[in-house]
């Protein structure tokens, strides 16, 4: 659009036509205060703080609702304007309680800031304030009515942004109040966006309530450990008796791929870290019972047993199960440890999406993998399977906002009437399990259409949809784990004629994609490189075992037959999540490292207390392949990160850790960002470092040393380290050439998490549980009409 020229405070400003005056001023570096205006939400004009003087207009104008026009001359800072703003604040403070010392927003309250800038602390209004009791609307949302300044931001973000419409306004004029959708409580997604967006302390968080004050915390920006979308969450940490306690999660600086957005899990579900059942001591089975022990003894037992099994029965007798929540560095290190130290390819993880098939389908155009940001900007989106509202909240947010703000066309094909159909240009329902036929149909196989016809959609509608999709340049195709193996290939083939088409394959856990990228597969090396062609890895690691290893079902089979002598499980709970027979491994030596005594940990011979993703550094790759930094925020005494545990086990097996973690070469410009709060860490490792003849540095436990190796060997991961350390998401490219593989589709077991569950981890979050309990008390929720 052509630029419009205006003058603001004597400064020439040019902005595209249609820009709001408040935005034009902001871009020119001139701040116009406002409460009700929020970028990307509908305009309200309620607070009247953004009053400015526009020449030739009789009265002061609200900058948030005025569109710029050619030659406009604007003054934003005259005596008249300052007086007007001061009067507005005086109005707002008329019934606003002066309880800043006990208000959770105190210190980060926009009204407080404005009152500081414009005065009006003394009121002419002498009548007593109209007090109302605070209300609890849900386990995580509290509402203090007198503090509310009626900016309607919460109402708008809940409705327009989240499409939940749980908040509304009752009454009119001076007696307006914000009210929840169900009598006295909220029935919503509990995302907490209303709390985050509230400029004052009217809406406050139940989880953070009265715990501390904003300036008392350290704020660490890291990546959420729950679903596979990889939202950036800023954790507020305070020192506690047992290390560092996380007291709050929010998206304070709004800088990540999620922008304004965070769901309930990113905002509140960090509290598993201080659950009372958290393990803080290694447990070793003695006389049939798991008894608390020391780290030294645990490493000795594991080291000697694993060495014994490897040397007597060979690597084939050892199985390794990786995690979908540990960092890329830990996954890479684990598979390297398995292949180089344990000399086995028996390594697998809980697969929730068919990434190897995705890669093999896209080897000819690896740039066709979309990033999370592409979803927000794409002109058209095709969503097949999955329910992003429940399983990928950020993805759903991006889709909704793309449709709302950019008028993108959304095509939804699902076996269930998922909520995103409300944004869809067209929604077509297919029978459950017909996704395979759908991809063949889209690929041009007309005979597959019969399987899709059970619903109200006619044959012609299906064919016209297919034609329409083929003429959608820039289409982003998003598919869930319903589409696997050869179906992925045919789906990709179906879109081969579409210009600039991109794809997203949806996994379920925070680092499901990372585990796949890092080669936690029995037949694939990092970067989906096939085992038959180890290439650079062969030279770098000094040999890779050639035989294809066991998948998880094969490990179980081998263990039942008594052939699998040792099983090493890192951060996974297959017994609980995959309904595996706990007695299958009764003849094996089982080592489990986890945060809690899970169903898998109880069958173990040694249980090691591990740190969670909020207590270590590294990187996560989200389901779109966006690489992000994980920074250490919290700390619980007694636990060790999975990275450190793997290195120590390798050390106790007599392996040279310098070869496992190639520290000291490559990029060392870490500058400490990756370590977050871990000062004094070197002191803690002093004894072991000294005993192993190593320098007193963090190097062998430094995830960045492994990231160097990853970036060296995986071309797709060669992204800017500076940008990564600065906290920006970096889109990684898929490998080109011979990579990926088609696996048995049955190996994929979707996690089926919803908004309030998160695998085994979610069970230990008090906030998530309180929300779930609260919901079960209520009658079935009803979907609210969009307006």
């Amino acid at each position, binding site marked *: 659009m052509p630029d419009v020229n205006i003058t603001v405070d004597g400064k020439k400003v040019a902005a595209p036509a249609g820009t709001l005056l408040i935005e034009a001023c902001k871009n020119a570096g001139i701040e116009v205060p406002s409460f009700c205006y929020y970028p990307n939400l509908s305009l309200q004009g309620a607070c009247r703080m953004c009053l400015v003087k526009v020449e030739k207009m009789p009265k002061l104008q609200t900058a948030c609702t005025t569109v710029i026009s050619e030659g406009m001359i604007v003054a934003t800072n005259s005596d008249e304007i300052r007086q007007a703003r001061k009067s507005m604040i005086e109005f707002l403070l008329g019934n606003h309680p002066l309880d800043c010392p006990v208000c959770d927003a105190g210190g980060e309250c926009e009204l407080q800031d404005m009152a500081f800038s414009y005065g009006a602390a003394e009121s002419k209004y002498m009548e007593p304030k109209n007090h109302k009791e605070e209300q609890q609307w849900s386990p995580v949302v509290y509402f203090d009515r007198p503090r509310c300044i009626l900016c309607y931001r919460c109402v708008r973000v809940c409705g327009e942004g989240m499409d939940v419409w749980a908040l509304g306004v009752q009454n009119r004029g001076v007696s307006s109040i914000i009210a929840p959708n169900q009598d006295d409580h909220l029935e919503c997604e509990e995302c907490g966006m209303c709390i985050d967006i509230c400029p004052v302390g009217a809406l406050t968080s139940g989880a953070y309530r009265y715990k*501390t004050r904003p300036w008392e915390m350290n704020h660490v920006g890291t990546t959420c450990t729950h679903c596979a979308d990889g939202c950036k969450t800023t954790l507020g940490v305070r020192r506690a008796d047992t290390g560092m306690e996380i007291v709050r999660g929010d998206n304070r600086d709004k800088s990540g791929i999620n922008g304004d957005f965070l769901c309930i899990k990113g905002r509140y579900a960090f509290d598993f870290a201080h659950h009372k059942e958290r393990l803080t001591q290694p447990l070793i089975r003695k006389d049939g019972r798991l008894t608390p022990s020391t780290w030294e003894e645990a490493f000795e037992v594991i080291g000697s047993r694993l060495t014994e099994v490897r040397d007597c029965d060979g690597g084939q007798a050892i199985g390794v199960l990786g995690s979908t929540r540990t960092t890329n560095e830990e996954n890479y290190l684990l598979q390297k440890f398995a292949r180089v130290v344990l000399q086995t390819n028996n390594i697998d993880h809980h697969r929730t999406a068919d990434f190897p098939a995705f890669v093999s389908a896209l080897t000819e155009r690896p740039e066709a993998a979309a990033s999370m940001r592409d979803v927000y900007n794409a002109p058209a989106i095709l969503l097949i399977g999955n329910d992003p509202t429940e399983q990928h909240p950020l993805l759903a947010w991006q889709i909704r906002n793309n449709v709302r703000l950019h008028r993108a066309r959304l095509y939804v094909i699902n076996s269930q009437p998922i909520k995103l159909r409300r944004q869809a240009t067209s929604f077509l329902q297919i029978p459950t399990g017909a996704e395979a036929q759908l991809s063949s149909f889209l690929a041009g196989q007309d005979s597959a259409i019969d399987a899709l016809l059970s619903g109200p959609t006619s044959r012609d509608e299906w064919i016209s949809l297919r034609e329409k999709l083929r003429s959608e340049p820039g289409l982003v195709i998003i598919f869930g784990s319903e589409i696997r193996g050869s179906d992925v290939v045919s789906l990709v083939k179906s879109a081969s004629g579409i210009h600039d088409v991109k794809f997203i394959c949806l996994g379920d856990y925070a680092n499901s994609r990372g585990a796949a990228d890092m080669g936690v597969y029995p037949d694939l090396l990092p970067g989906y490189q096939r085992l038959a062609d180890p290439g650079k890895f062969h030279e770098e690691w000094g040999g890779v075992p050639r035989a294809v290893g066991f998948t998880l079902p094969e490990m179980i089979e081998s263990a039942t037959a008594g052939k699998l002598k040792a099983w090493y499980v890192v951060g996974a709970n297959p017994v609980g999540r995959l309904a595996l027979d706990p007695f299958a491994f009764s003849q094996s030596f089982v080592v489990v490292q986890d945060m809690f005594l899970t169903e898998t940990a109880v069958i173990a011979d040694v249980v090691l207390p591990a740190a969670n993703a909020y207590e270590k550094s590294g990187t996560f790759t989200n389901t779109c392949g966006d690489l992000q930094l994980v920074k250490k925020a919290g700390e619980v005494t007694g636990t060790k990160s999975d990275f450190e545990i793997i290195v120590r086990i390798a050390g106790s097996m007599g392996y040279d850790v310098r070869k496992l973690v190639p520290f000291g070469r490559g990029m060392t410009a870490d500058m400490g960002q990756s370590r977050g709060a871990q000062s004094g860490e070197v002191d803690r490792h002093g004894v072991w470092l000294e005993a192993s003849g190593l320098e007193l540095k963090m190097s062998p436990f430094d995830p960045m040393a492994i990231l160097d190796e990853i970036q060296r060997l995986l071309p797709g991961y060669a992204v800017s380290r500076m940008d990564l350390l600065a906290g920006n998401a970096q889109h990684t490219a898929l490998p080109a050439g011979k990579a990926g593989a088609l696996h048995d589709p049955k190996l994929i077991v979707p996690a089926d998490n919803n908004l309030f569950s998160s695998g085994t981890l979610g069970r230990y979050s008090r906030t998530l549980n309180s929300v779930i309990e609260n919901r079960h008390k209520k009658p079935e929720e009803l979907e609210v009409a969009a307006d």
Partner: protein
Amino acid sequence: MPVLKNIAAIAKGMSITFMEMFQPTIVENYPDGPGPLKGAKFQARFRGTHVLQRDENGLEKCVACFLCAANCPSNCIYIEAAENTAEQRVSGAERYAKIYNIDYNRCIFCGYCVEACPTDAITHGHGFEVATFNVSGLIYRKEQMLAPMPAHMGANAVFNQDEIGAGAPAVAVQGS
């Protein structure tokens, strides 16, 4: 005559000495003086160890706003906040200080915390004998700094009459 001059100077000086001998003494006789203060005397403005005040109902004035800790130049105040409930009401507002520690190893008695306090909860008392052989004893807890219950609370306190009838021991009801 320099000799006479010197004698005169000595006499002048000694006369002041002898004059002062008959004046009342102004040196404080601490720690050998009488009374609980052992002879120490204070101006009202003296900034001694802190006292956490109570309101007229005997509730703590501190609402755990952390402003004293924020204002403290030596970072010696540690607070953990908690929420008042109907059963356990500790302060007059929504929240109270569950833990309130002052580290007298670090405190410089500047009085900024007292100035910052919006509820006049923290004040300087006249306590000054803080010295100890054990530094960990210099971290004062809330219980050590809390003012005693106001005098009228003893005589006018409301007891748990209903429960006493059922045989429970008499306890003053909080906030009465």
